[in-house]
């Protein structure tokens, strides 16, 4: 029977692992190397190299060599300009569309480049199974890991990469959670665990509760644009500013390689030589302190979301190559007041966990169960550009949420639904995931149709949405398929901003609500004034000057409506409400007009 594997598709390195007799193993090449560098290179004759050979070509032919492609997954060109600046390869794409990467003479999307790496891992595993004497060594299914903080677009891009590589993607799972599974196997931990995952390009923190073999994620946080790459970049910039003139692509790659080696050296010894200059560990630590500090804030937010104090964490697990840096190790230990675990190789632990999960899926073995969460809130746009959250961040997946909508004008037959991801109040500040249209609503007065929108996030953290008009049962299902994902900066900014700008959001939201209320009072008043019964009502029931007063306050409210003076809008709304109260009563008593009675009581 064909084989199933677990894959850690990393920014810097990728690995493949499998389970044999209940225990996970990483698959190595003949020389014992488990890591496949996530580098793809095209020779002039069209041959595509992946891994070590591609990494070597980075020094000799950087313009035809692609690395750190994970940073481009699920992105648009607007999102990656800053990253592309330091890369030797071509990065292009149309505005609003997916990124395209030049590999030799050809262009590929990021999932296609990732698929080259996945195919290499698949071949490595198949060669291994062949050598083991397996009758059917083919690998056709895999669990692939992603950073916990990856959004819907990035997860979808990863799943697409698997498909392009000819793998059935059984499940997308989060890297820190996978790591906890690998640890859980060894020692049957119980209690509260923090997994600190600082890799080549991304940072994640997940807080889990483990009990009875159930690994329940309580909260997650992170930064999809923070990793060892950023540390390398600091060293590269430091070296290049010491030198005159513009550096060639070859020169930059040479310095990059030296920087990575210097970084490794300083995890073992207290000083090294970098580009012919002495570099001490103290100097290095001073240089990278801002980056290490940036990982601690997400840790605090994850703790707060889980409702826990740092001291309540029983164990801290370190994952990712960047956790080998002594400064990282020390600061994390300090924050949680616990000595971090590092028994398992931090480069291999994620792939091991992915293999464990693949085994659970294929065999249905119920000893262990992973319950993960969605990292970002999901919502839809409501009146006035406000985001209405439907599934909150850190909800256990799978999860559903629904919200009821109606039409704004009479006989409206279609409703636009705009799906968003992020923590902010205003639509403009969150990431747009998709728009879809519900058509064929039978013509009815405004406010009569009842459109229910339901979101379903599956166990992969990937979203589907359906909308249904309840009076007629008209239904639409859509797969939320975005053209690109959130930029790293945007995801980061969205959550940070939701803390920093909570106040500004609040004020803006209040203003919009006040305007909406004012608009509905204006609409109702105008409708009443236009009603065929109105002249009769006015002549029979009105006091002298009453009509004039209504018209004047109506004009007054319309005048202030466009301003951002919430107090004034509110005041004029109250005045107009008072001025039209008598009119509304008369109209209602006569029951001649549905205009006012059709609105709910609290609006009148």
């Amino acid at each position, binding site marked *: 029977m064909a084989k199933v594997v677990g894959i850690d598709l990393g920014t810097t390195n990728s690995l493949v692992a499998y389970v044999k007799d209940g225990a996970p193993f990483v698959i190595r090449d003949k020389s014992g190397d488990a890591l496949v560098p996530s580098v793809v290179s095209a020779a002039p004759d069209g041959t595509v190299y992946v891994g070590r050979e591609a990494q070597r070509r980075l020094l000799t032919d950087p313009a035809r060599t692609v690395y750190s492609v994970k940073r481009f997954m699920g992105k648009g060109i607007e999102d990656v300009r800053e990253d592309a600046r330091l890369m030797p390869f071509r990065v292009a794409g149309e505005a609003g569309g997916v990124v395209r990467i030049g590999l030799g003479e050809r262009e590929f999307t990021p999932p296609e480049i990732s698929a080259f790496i996945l195919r290499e891992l698949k071949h490595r595993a198949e060669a291994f199974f062949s050598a083991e004497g397996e009758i059917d060594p083919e690998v056709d299914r895999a669990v692939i890991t992603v950073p916990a903080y990856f959004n819907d677009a990035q997860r979808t891009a990863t799943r697409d990469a698997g498909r392009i590589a000819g793998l059935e993607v*059984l*499940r997308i799972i989060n890297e820190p959670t996978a790591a906890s599974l690998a640890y859980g196997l060894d020692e049957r931990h119980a209690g509260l665990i923090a997994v600190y995952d600082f890799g080549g390009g991304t940072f994640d923190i997940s807080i889990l509760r483990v*009990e*009875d073999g*159930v690994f*329940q994620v309580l909260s997650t946080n992170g930064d999809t644009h923070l990793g060892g790459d950023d540390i390398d970049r600091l060293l590269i910039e430091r070296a290049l500013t010491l030198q005159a003139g513009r550096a060639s692509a070859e020169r930059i790659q040479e310095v990059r390689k030296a920087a990575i080696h210097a970084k490794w050296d300083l995890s073992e010894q207290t000083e090294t030589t970098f580009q012919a200059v002495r570099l001490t560990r103290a100097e290095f630590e001073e240089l990278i302190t801002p980056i290490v500090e940036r990982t601690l804030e997400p840790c605090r937010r994850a703790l707060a979301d889980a409702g826990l104090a740092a001291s309540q964490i029983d164990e801290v697990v370190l994952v990712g190559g960047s956790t080998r840096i002594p400064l990282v190790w020390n600061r994390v230990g300090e924050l949680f007041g616990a000595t971090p675990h590092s028994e398992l190789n931090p480069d291999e632990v994620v792939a091991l966990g992915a293999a464990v*999960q693949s085994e*659970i*899926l*294929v065999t*249905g073995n*119920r000893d262990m*169960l*992973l*319950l993960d969460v969605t990292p970002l809130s999901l919502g839809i746009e409501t009146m006035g550009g406000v985001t209405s959250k439907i599934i909150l961040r850190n*909800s*256990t*997946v*799978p*999860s*559903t*949420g629904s919200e009821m909508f109606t039409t704004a004008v009479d006989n409206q037959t279609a409703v636009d639904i705009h799906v968003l991801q992020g923590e902010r109040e205003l639509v403009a500040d969150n990431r747009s995931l998709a728009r879809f249209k519900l058509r064929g609503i039978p013509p009815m007065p405004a406010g009569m149709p009842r459109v229910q929108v339901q979101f*379903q996030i*599956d*166990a992969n953290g990937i979203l589907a949405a359906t909308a249904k008009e309840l009076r007629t049962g008209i239904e639409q299902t859509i797969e939320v398929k975005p053209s690109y994902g959130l930029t790293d900066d945007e995801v980061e900014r969205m959550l940070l901003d939701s803390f920093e700008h*909570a*106040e500004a959001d*609040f004020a803006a939201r209040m203003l919009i609500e006040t305007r909406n209320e004012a608009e509905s009072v204006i609409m109702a008043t105008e409708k009443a004034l236009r009603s065929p019964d109105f002249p009769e009502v006015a002549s029979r029931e009105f006091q002298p000057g009453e009509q004039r007063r209504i018209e004047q306050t109506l004009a007054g409210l319309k005048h202030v409506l466009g301003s951002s*003076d*919430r*107090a004034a809008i509110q005041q004029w709304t109250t005045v107009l409400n008072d001025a039209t109260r008598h009119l509304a009563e008369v109209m209602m008593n006569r029951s001649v007009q549905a205009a006012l009675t059709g609105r709910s009581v*609290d609006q009148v």
Partner: protein
Amino acid sequence: MTSDTPVHTIQVCRTCGGGAPVDAHFCPQCTKILSLGRQGDYFAFLGVPRRLQLDPAVLDERFRALSRQFHPDYFYNATPAERRASLERSSYLNDAYRTLKQPISRMAYLLEIEGVWTPADKAEGGGSKQVPPALLEEVFALNEELDELRELRAGGARADQWQARLHRARQPIDAKRAAHEAELEELFRRWDGLAEGGGTEAARHEVLAALRERLLERNYINNLLAGIEKELERPAGVER
């Protein structure tokens, strides 16, 4: 009939066509997972009594046990209908657990399924726009004080001058909130006592009505305090 009496509705198994009790997760005849169509409320789904004081350990244990029964991980090789059912049931379980875990959301949910928490209550952000009668005095005093403080701030007063005053002005409201917690606990006990002993409809209704009042007040207080906190964080210069 009290709410704890099982309701004898049934659901139909889409695999074998047999009938199953509404709270069952698996068909008693063919043992397949049942699709989610007619299900009981969150309490019944989790198999815990409809009480306001629930042992968190019991709830956790039920959540883990049910997750183990129908998580999508275990239906990978099943038929599409079973996979769909497992996804629906797991989603419903996660929603149920999240709602019942916190005492306040549990209470709000109970009021909803008992029919005393109306959509209108919800629409207003769960707190009345009108000042709840029980809070009139405190809110009136606080608003007066706030107006003066705003003038002070606008006049360029130093932060420490008005902050101490604001802190004092908040105290009666904070005290109300603390008193509230105690009142809620007492009401929780009364509700659970009635549910155990099958109290009269009138007694049940009285407790539910009192709970609804407390919830509206509580949300009102929270909105009020959140508003003050936001105002505090804002630099004096940006006030409208």
